[in-house]
Structures are given as structure tokens and as C-alpha cells.
């Protein structure tokens, strides 16, 4: 009873690893580190497997493991903490036609955010989680999610301009 169903876990890992890896990559910004993060999160999920019971539970657990592990790694590795950016873009004079450049700039700015702000934004706006789901994944309160998201978006707006990160967006703020 409560045995680890290896086949079911293997199927879960195979089916969900790509999606989990994408979120991990957005959180850490490095492919090799994202793979390490995925491996660690799935290992934790395997250990918890007998208690998870259903796909939704396993998915939520793995996502939480990705998020909290990433944040803990950042805490331990100071070089992954917020990266000071002295090269604040001159948003008023940017050429909006340069899509690739904009893309890269926004990516760099996202990766420059503190870990918890970055995780909250990835979960809210890439994973499309609600504030409550984001709070569960981060292991914090809904209020903390709101403040982390607000602070992160404010920094991005400051650096990238309101056109890139509008105050009221289609992103579903406040769900």
C-alpha cells in the first residue's frame, strides 16, 4: 500500500518535464541550471509520490518544488541574486521596430530582478496562475505575491517603459 508506482511516475515525468523545464528556465535564465532544477524538483516529487495521488496534485507539487528550490538556490548562490544594472535603457528614444533587441533587453531585465519577484512574474504571467495558485507554488501569502509582482513590474516599467509593461494589461493582474 502507498507504494511508489514507478510506471505512473515515469509517465508523469515524461509528460510534464518539458513544461516544467520551460518554467524553470524562465526562472533561472540558464539551460544547464534549469535542467538541474528540473531534476531536483522531479526527485522531490518522486519522494512525495505516494501522497500526491492525482495528476493535479503532482503537477502542483512539482511546480512548487521548482519554484521554492530555485529561490533557495538563489539564496545560497549570491551570484544569482539581483544583478545591479547600470545600463538603464533610454526608453524614450528606443527604436520600437527592433523586435529582437527589445526581446533580449526585456529578457535581461527580467533576469535582473530579485529571485522572488522573477518567480512570481513567471508563475503569474507565463504559467497563467492565479494569485492564490502562485502563493501556493511559492509557499507564501497572496499578499506577498501581490507585493512581489507589483515590485517586479514596477522595476521593469522603470527600465523598459510603460509600453513594454503597461499598468493595466491583458495579463490578468488581480485574478
Amino acid at each position, binding site marked *: *500500500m*502507498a*507504494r*511508489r*508506482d*514507478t*510506471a*505512473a*511516475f*515515469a*509517465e*508523469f*515525468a*515524461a509528460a510534464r*518535464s*518539458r513544461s516544467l*523545464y*520551460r518554467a524553470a*528556465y*524562465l526562472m533561472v535564465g540558464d*539551460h544547464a541550471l*534549469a*535542467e538541474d532544477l*528540473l*531534476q531536483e524538483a*522531479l*526527485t522531490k516529487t*518522486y*519522494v*512525495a*509520490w*505516494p*501522497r*500526491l*495521488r*492525482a*495528476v*493535479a496534485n*503532482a503537477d502542483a507539487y512539482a511546480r512548487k518544488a521548482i519554484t521554492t528550490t530555485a529561490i533557495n538556490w538563489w539564496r545560497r548562490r549570491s551570484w544569482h541574486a539581483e544583478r545591479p544594472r547600470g545600463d538603464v535603457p533610454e*526608453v524614450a528614444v*528606443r527604436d*520600437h521596430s527592433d*523586435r529582437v533587441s*527589445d*526581446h533580449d533587453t*526585456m*529578457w535581461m531585465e*527580467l533576469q535582473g530582478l530579485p529571485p522572488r519577484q522573477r518567480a512570481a*512574474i513567471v508563475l503569474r*504571467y*507565463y504559467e497563467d496562475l492565479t494569485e492564490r495558485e502562485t502563493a501556493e507554488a511559492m509557499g507564501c501569502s497572496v499578499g506577498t505575491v501581490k507585493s512581489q509582482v507589483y515590485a517586479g513590474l514596477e522595476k521593469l516599467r522603470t527600465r*523598459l*517603459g510603460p*509600453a*513594454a*509593461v*503597461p499598468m493595466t*494589461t*491583458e*495579463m490578468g493582474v488581480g485574478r
Partner: protein
Amino acid sequence: MTETLKDMMTARADAAPGPHLDVGDVIRAGRRRVLRNRAAGGTAACAVLAAVALIAPTHPFGGADPSAVDSADRVTYAVGSTIHDGNRTIDVAPHEVTSYVRTDDGFAYAAQDGRIYFTDGGASEQIGDSGGDHRLAADDSGSYVGWTEVDGYGDQRPEVVVYDTARRTEVFRTSAAGGDGRLPPLVMAIDDGVVYVRDDLKPYTAAAWDVSTSDPVPSSLALTDVANGYIARDYWRDNAQNPRTATIVSRDPDSDQPRFPRLDGISNSLSDLSPSGRYILSDVGEPSGFRQVVVERATKTEVTPRVVGYAHEDPAYWIDDDRYVLEGYTGINDGMSKRDLLVCSVSAGSCEVVTTLEGGVTFPDD
């Protein structure tokens, strides 16, 4: 800057290469961590005798009819180097018990290094070496214990071994059970002299052998338990392409009836049969989540004992054909927090706390 943040993240994620993930590596790492957690629990776990006294058996391994023994005598769990058996304890130090089973003659257990030992309450005797895979299986009564052996590097074909604790000798060995060194086959059950093996490598294969003759015996894919000739297995729609949706319990390994409800999707507290196959204990999904139910196989009637006051209940094992052991959590069911150990009786329709646990505990494989 025309791209929204979401667009950028989606584009970045889409452009990321697929992860190089070896699920076998994950499973092996997970197994090692489970073993470490159990060993760590040995130093922290404690058990507090609660309201219901456990009655000491006068002759625990004397071949007595198990049904004649008070069920409390059959409550067992292991913490670190100690196997609790009713209200007596067996110290197997320096070994740490990572998995174990009860036979009519005593306990067979796997230590952290994967070696398999047997104790009848006295000194332990090594009876095998799993090479790392720690799952054991035994019948509800009898003297056979089975496991899978792999070499340390996963280079050789896994072998399934059955040992007779009455005769103190190995009685069956085969390398024809499928799997490989990364995902060896699991000995899922021993029932009425037949060892049932489940190969979790695709394509799945079903394997079972009569231990006394070594003849192959018909078995079922996705088998989860066998008791008294009844085989419980997952029912999948469309050849495993869709989530399992029911449990089939039948003596016919090819039958797809009768089906019993279970939780959709993955379900890890596998449907378990009572020793005679009379009852099925499994999870079913409900709008509020899931819960464990006991169903009488012949009538499909739910006969779940009443248990109240817990946020989560995790079943552990059947003691006999009426009673099973359950962990009751008031908080998160993480396998470590303080929780009650209960014995639930189908005939009484209720559960009673027998002890309180905290920390890592190992229950017998079945």
C-alpha cells in the same frame, strides 16, 4: 518596445531546447533519498503508546494461525534499526531497516546497502543482496519473500529471487522478468506460491511464475496486488494512452471486469486487496478531493469504516481480512509530522488509535 512581457517569456520558453532528462536517474536519486529519509527518521521518530493497549503475542513466530491472534499483535512498523511488532521490539542494529515484510517465521528486511536479512527475533542472517532495489514482497501468510536483484552498475539483467524463510534457502531465481538495471522489475506480490512481477519499462510486460515448478503463470499488465488468486490491476482506456480510471479485480488475468471506481489519473495509493480478496481498499475522487474507500468485492458495496478528525488519512497495510492500518494526519501528510496510527475494522465500522508516530517510519511492503 512592443512585445509584452508574456509574449517575450513565451517566445523564450518556446525557443528553449528540450531538457536532457533521464527519468531512470531521477527515480534512482529519488529512491536513494527515500532511504536516507527513512534512516534519518530513525533517530527522530518516536512512538507513544495510546489508548488501545497492544497485547504481546506469547509465541510470535510459532506458526500459529494468524487469524487466531489479536489484530493488535499484527500492528508493525520499523523505525531506524528497530522493528516494532505488537508491543515487542526487535533490534537489528547496526542495520537500518529500509523496507521489510513479515512471514510466518519472522521478518525479512532490506538494509541501507541493499542487502536482505532475516530475523526471527534473534540475530539477523543475510539471505540476499538486492544490489540497491529495496522492495520486498511476501504473501499474507506463508514463508516466501521475494525481491529483485540488480548489480551496482545496472549492466546485468535484473533477477527475481524468492527465498523460503521456513527452509532458510533460496527457492526461485530468474532473469526473465524484463526491465533493466535502471528500472528493474518489481516483485509486486507473492500469492499462493506464485510470484508476480511488474515491469515498468515500456513496452510493459506481465510476468509470474509458480515458485515450486518455475513454470510461467498467466498474469496481468498494470498489476497492483494479488490476494487469494484475485488479481487487482489498473484499467486503462485505449491501451494506456489515457489515465487509468478503474481497478479491475478478477481471478481471470485477461478479464476487464468487474471494475471498481478509483481516482482518475495517476493514483499512488494502489488499490489493495484484503488477504482473502474480500475487500478492496482504494482512492476515489470526489469534488472535495479524494478519500479512501473500502468496497466489498462480491457485492460492490462500500463498507468504509468511519474515521473522523483528520485532514488526511494514508492507509498502510491490511492486518487481516477485517482490519487495516491507517495513518491519520491533522496537518500535512508528509510522512514525517506527528500523526496517529489507527487500526480500522470493517466489521466494527470504526477506527481506533493505537499509537502516535512522529518522524520517518517504515511500514511493511505487501
